[in-house]
């Protein structure tokens, strides 16, 4: 079953607007939550990541909000730009002797000029 659920599937935002992508998980053993950005024909690139001991992390225009009690986390992209148009994946991992990432199904973001 899908360990990490992501929404929306697609998102269209005006240039300068805020893009918000949400993810939810069930397994409380997850302890690392990264967001990846993927352009067509490329591999995923790490954007920003958070651990459950903090509720928010900001890097430039990208912010992760984390709600441990609700088992939800979200990515906010401030001042969205056409160059941000890509597919975004949330992911989660836990220590099991290996470091496998469980990915969401992805959000295709389009930023309109």
């Amino acid at each position, binding site marked *: 079953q899908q360990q990490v659920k992501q929404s929306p599937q697609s998102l269209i935002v005006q240039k300068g607007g805020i893009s918000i992508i949400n993810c939810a998980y069930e397994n409380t053993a997850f302890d690392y939550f990264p967001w990846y950005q993927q352009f067509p024909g490329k*591999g995923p690139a*790490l954007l920003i990541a958070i651990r459950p001991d903090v509720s928010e992390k900001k890097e430039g225009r990208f912010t992760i909000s984390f709600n441990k009690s609700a088992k939800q986390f979200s990515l906010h992209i401030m001042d969205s730009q056409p160059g941000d148009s890509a597919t975004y994946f949330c992911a989660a991992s836990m220590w099991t002797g*290996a*470091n496998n990432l*469980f990915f969401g199904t992805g959000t295709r973001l389009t930023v309109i000029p």
Partner: protein
Amino acid sequence: DAGVTQSPTHLIKTRGQHVTLRCSPISGHKSVSWYQQVLGQGPQFIFQYYEKEERGRGNFPDRFSARQFPNYSSELNVNALLLGDSALYLCASSPGLAGETQYFGPGTRLLVL
């Protein structure tokens, strides 16, 4: 510094054939993971290798196998190819094993006819 490199970039095979995909990690990284990304979905974990030993295996049939060499490069082998094996195969490397950021290569696009 070179990132994760993968070869070949594209591959076309027919059902029943065998395929070998190759990955070179970032210099100094000892862990290599393999993921399968079917079109329109998030990557799915296949294997993780660390110091030449398998440390994790996802929910994939025994037709999938991998190995890691002394120089930390890795091969993913798939036997008896099925149409459903058509996907982007991603390799990711990290410095160590647990809780480390994974850096993805550009992937190998496999098409099975």
